[in-house]
């Protein structure tokens, strides 16, 4: 299997920006609303606070409110397994529409393998997002990692040394991100946005603006393109990473701490959670995962250029946000993210096979991001 032209989405910061606000910001807590109203008594009552949030909280204060049951019937479509329904529907649609090209083993294998890189990055991104911390630099980090992996090999080192160097670079970048956010108290969105630009410069500097196309170790390239049981090796790397992150998040105390910090950082701190350490660790982890992903991506592409990374930013964010509307609605989670990845990939793949123009990829990813965040905001209000 060879690489297909990979998704070329511009790092659209603005689109990403619509995500965070709606997704993370909860309605003002009741106390804040009251305080705000007291602060501005001259304002009319309707203006004084967010009426929805206020009504919401008042309803809760009023006593035992049965919500889940009646709400669930109305929002069946957005329930825990909605993503699976949509995915099945997409497969069915293309199976009927373009059976000869879509319904081939080859097509499924390629789709599964192609998405390994986006999926690995999205899995890394889950960690900071679950703690309410943004990492916009992971795609840039993956790009730098690709360049380091190639550059070190062209200088006569073994692929193992190259991979370790790239992963170590991830650790350094993650530690710097963590330091900026925790010690310098810079908002994570800003800090990692800045870092993503720095990393783009670093990638250019390493490659000198040229593509690195030769000097790779052959077994390294084989790793990127060989298949096992019909699926590319990178797919299995992604699967292993998914299992590890799933266990960390669902079955280790640190997973609870991540969600707690994302849910209410002040409450987490007063419950004895070391919030700073969690924030630092989450940024560190996502950068290390990005470093690892870059190594795999380099092997898959067999070429390194400075602009490889940024195109993965938007698809990964889309997948994590879309994933947060399913399995555990309102929370970013591993299974939901994987379903989202393959749901998006199936849609794009099917449309392209059906003859849609190449820009359908950008269209689909952007639309999915907005819809995902709107759904996330909806489920946030619901719970």
């Amino acid at each position, binding site marked *: 299997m060879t690489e297909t032209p990979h998704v070329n989405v511009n790092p659209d910061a603005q689109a990403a920006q619509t995500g965070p606000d709606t997704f993370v910001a*909860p309605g003002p*807590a*009741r*106390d*804040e609303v009251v*305080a705000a*109203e*007291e*602060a*501005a*008594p*001259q*304002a*009319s*009552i309707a203006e*004084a606070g967010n009426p929805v949030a206020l009504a919401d*909280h008042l309803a*809760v*204060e*009023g*006593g*035992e*409110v*049965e*919500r*889940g049951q009646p709400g669930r019937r109305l929002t069946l479509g957005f329930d825990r397994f909605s993503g699976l329904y949509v995915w099945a529907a997409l497969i069915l649609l293309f199976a009927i529409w373009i059976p000869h090209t879509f319904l081939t083993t080859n097509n499924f294998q390629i789709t599964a393998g192609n998405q390994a890189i986006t999926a690995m990055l999205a899995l890394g991104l889950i960690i900071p997002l679950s703690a309410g911390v943004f990492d916009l630099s992971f795609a840039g980090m993956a790009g730098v990692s690709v360049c380091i992996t190639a550059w070190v090999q062209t200088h006569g080192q073994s692929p193992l040394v190259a991979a370790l160097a790239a992963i170590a670079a991830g650790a350094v970048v993650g530690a710097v991100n963590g330091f900026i956010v925790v010690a310098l108290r810079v908002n994570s969105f800003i800090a990692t946005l800045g870092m993503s630009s720095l990393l783009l410069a670093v990638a250019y500097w390493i490659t000198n603006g040229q593509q690195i196309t030769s000097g790779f170790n052959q077994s390294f390239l084989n790793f990127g393109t060989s298949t096992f049981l019909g699926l590319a090796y990178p797919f299995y790397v992604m699967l292993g990473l998914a299992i590890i992150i799933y*266990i960390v998040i*669902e*079955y*280790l*105390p640190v*997973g*609870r*701490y991540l*969600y*707690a910090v994302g*849910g*209410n950082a*002040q*409450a*987490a*701190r*007063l*419950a*004895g*959670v*070391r919030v700073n350490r969690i924030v630092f660790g989450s940024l560190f982890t996502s950068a290390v995962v990005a470093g690892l992903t870059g190594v795999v991506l380099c092997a898959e592409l067999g070429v390194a250029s400075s602009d490889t990374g940024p195109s993965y930013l938007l698809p990964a964010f889309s997948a994590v946000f879309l994933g947060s509307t399913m399995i555990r609605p*309102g929370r970013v989670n591993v299974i939901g993210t994987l379903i989202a990845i393959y749901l998006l990939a199936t849609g794009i793949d099917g449309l392209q096979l059906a003859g849609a123009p190449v820009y359908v990829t950008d269209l689909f990813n952007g639309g999915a991001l907005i819809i995902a965040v709107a759904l996330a905001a909806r489920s*946030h209000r619901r*719970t």
Partner: protein
Amino acid sequence: MVPSPVLQVQGLSKTFPGQRALIDVDMDLQPGEIRALVGQNGSGKSTLIKILAGYHDPDPGGQVHVAGQPLALGAAAAGEHAGLRFVHQDLGLVPTLDARDNLAMGHGYERNRAGLISWGREHRLARQALKDLGYDIDVRQPVSHLAASERTAVALARALSPRRADPRVLVLDEPTASLPVAEVHRLFDVVRTVRSQGVAVLFVSHHLDEVFALCESVTVLRDGRHVATRPVAGLDEDGLIALMVGRAVEQGQAQAASAAGHEAALRVRGLTTNVLSSIDLDVGAGEIVGVAGITGSGREQVALALFGGIARSGSVTVGGHDVEPQRPDKAVEAGLALVPAERHANAAFLEFNLRENVSISNPGDFVRRGLLSRRSEVSDVSLWLRKLNVQPPRPDRILNTLSGGNQQKVMLARWLRRKPAVLVLDEPTQGVDVGAKADIHALIDEAAAAGAAVLVISTDHNELTRLAERVVVLRRGQIADRMHQPNIDPDSITAATLGTDTGAVA
């Protein structure tokens, strides 16, 4: 001849579900008068002010006249147009904006002929408005860079701005709560300047010494009713306190502070924050100690300072081990547990289920063979939810689908499960219904009986009387009084929190 009152309140009542907050209150204010409005927590002061501000709709039948004209109640802009102005305790300024912008809020900016903001005129107007109050401030500084009294001046200048209608009545709601003593006197001078321009001032304060220093007359509310309006001359502090609590009360007598028979599980020495200064406190194992104090006395900082939620100096030891400042995790390790005030902001994970809310303080307890065991977590949390009579006792319920009382019990379960050596509760029954309140009190007793040292910080003086063997009373950041059973009752606690300072009592 008696001049006609500028503010006339007649037969004002306000009923909230299950509570009559204000009952048939009358009050007149003359132009140029400085009137104090006093009363305990829950006496109806805030309700009265919020009705005047148009924030609450009163019950039908009440009337308010400003300068003889009836005021449309329940409409915010009406009071503004009639000349009612308010400065609230938190001032309502936008800290990142400068004085000019803050003054323009609510009034709009001066425009030039092209429709653009005329900054020159804005600048002059802002400087002049502040100069009239005796302040020379750089109006281009963000107000967060100004001193506390300067911020108060900006808020006052905004309230007194004549751009919409001349101010007639100025309501100051706890304006001194965040001011150092020297600045309080400066504020008084400003208030007197305002008064001399014929504006009536309604001054709401818990600090009775300020009432005596500034005001000519005082209106006392108690349990929603108007109790008395009197000239300040001829009243003394005990007399005023008696009016507020409804009977004569002796201010609590200082007693030697020793927890005889208790080994101090919590030992606090020289606890100091930006409000608290040098607090010493011991709580013995099995003992329940209360902390009382009005807002601004430092009461609201005690729990967070002990637990590491805010910066502090001084030493806190639990069972002989020092607790590092600003490290809640170390405090938990040392055996401290905190159920903080303002549950939604400080303790609750509203969108998480009860299981996660309870186990978050120590999920490590449920690790079996290296992984979190949901089964052991569910069974332990269920046990505690039943023990605390949480309704419904289902670990998979989302927290914000429970009533306030049940939410608070979940917060308690989080800590009682850990069997802490020291349990600190800040306003443990805030926003909790009567039944749950009794349950929570019983749980606190039980925790103490099981050997925990318990510190209960509360503005509910009945609660302190019910629970505490000793009560420590804070005033202006210091311990002003220590009371012991059987000499503790709600009224004497109230009196002690309101008393004037005659120096901290050791």
